[in-house]
């Protein structure tokens, strides 16, 4: 889904305008994914997703959430110290990049479209998909560079 958004600009637009339908195009539908909103990372904005009150998570797209996502440390701190949480994940975002945190609800689930890594212009959609990590779609990680992929 992310790789498709990277290579196909019209899909990316559909994803940003109506994520529920765009995701359904690829058949990732089901419970806990009834209303989806996709938010795009750029050099100006880095997005992160949380559910402070419970553990709302886009099951049909990402499966079951990891424990850290459902636990008090992440849920409490990402809304007041997102850069500190990113540091816990070994991730840093430039000082002048805005960090936006989205609080999911029982009705609306958010999904992050990570930035496309540099130097991947020649990669096919299928190869690009290998660079997308679960954490990058929550906002606690970045998509992999081609040289970070295991052989």
């Amino acid at each position: 889904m992310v790789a498709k958004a990277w290579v196909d600009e019209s899909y990316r637009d559909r994803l940003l305008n109506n994520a529920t339908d765009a995701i359904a195009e690829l058949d990732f539908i089901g419970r806990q994914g009834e209303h989806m909103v996709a938010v795009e990372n750029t050099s100006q904005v880095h997005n992160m997703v949380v559910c402070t009150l419970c553990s709302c998570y886009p099951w049909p797209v990402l499966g079951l959430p990891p424990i850290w996502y459902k636990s008090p440390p992440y849920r409490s701190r990402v809304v007041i110290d997102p850069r500190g949480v990113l540091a816990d994940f070994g991730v840093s975002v430039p000082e002048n990049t805005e960090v936006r945190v989205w609080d999911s609800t029982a009705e609306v689930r958010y999904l992050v479209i990570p930035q496309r890594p540099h130097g991947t212009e020649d990669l096919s959609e299928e190869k690009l998909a290998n660079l997308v990590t679960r954490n990058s779609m929550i906002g606690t990680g970045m998509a992999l560079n081609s040289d970070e992929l295991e052989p």
Partner: protein
Amino acid sequence: MNGGQDLGGVMGFGPVIEEPNEPHFHKEWEARVLGLTLAMGALGLWNIDKGRHARENRPPSEYLSWSYYRIWLAGLETLVAQCGLLDDLATASTKNVKPLAADMFRRHFQKVALQIVRPKRLQNTKLATISPPRISTPRTTHVCRDICATMLAKS
């Protein structure tokens, strides 16, 4: 309702720690609790808001110290009791409910749980092109209702 679950902005919980190659479940009972909760939810006796309230309406000391699925189990116990399901079951057991129904029920729970957790594609860093689980909610509800109706039927 405020309570232990209202965590946004609360301080003192320390760093976020990610478990490498974290399995979906650390104990088998956790998978059963997930499957049970979802299958029972398919009966349509409660909605997601009631489900969450059942989990969250407890002393903060419990909510904050219990593991995720321990909280789910407590929530399910609350909902089952609130709906009086246990009362009916106790009555039904004296009225010759077929033991076969209970077995189908158990297998259906396992099937529902497996369908939910099948996206193993995301356990590693790769997003493979495995197709996602298909959960036919109307069919699940229909089957669950039939099985439960059989279990709870009075002769």
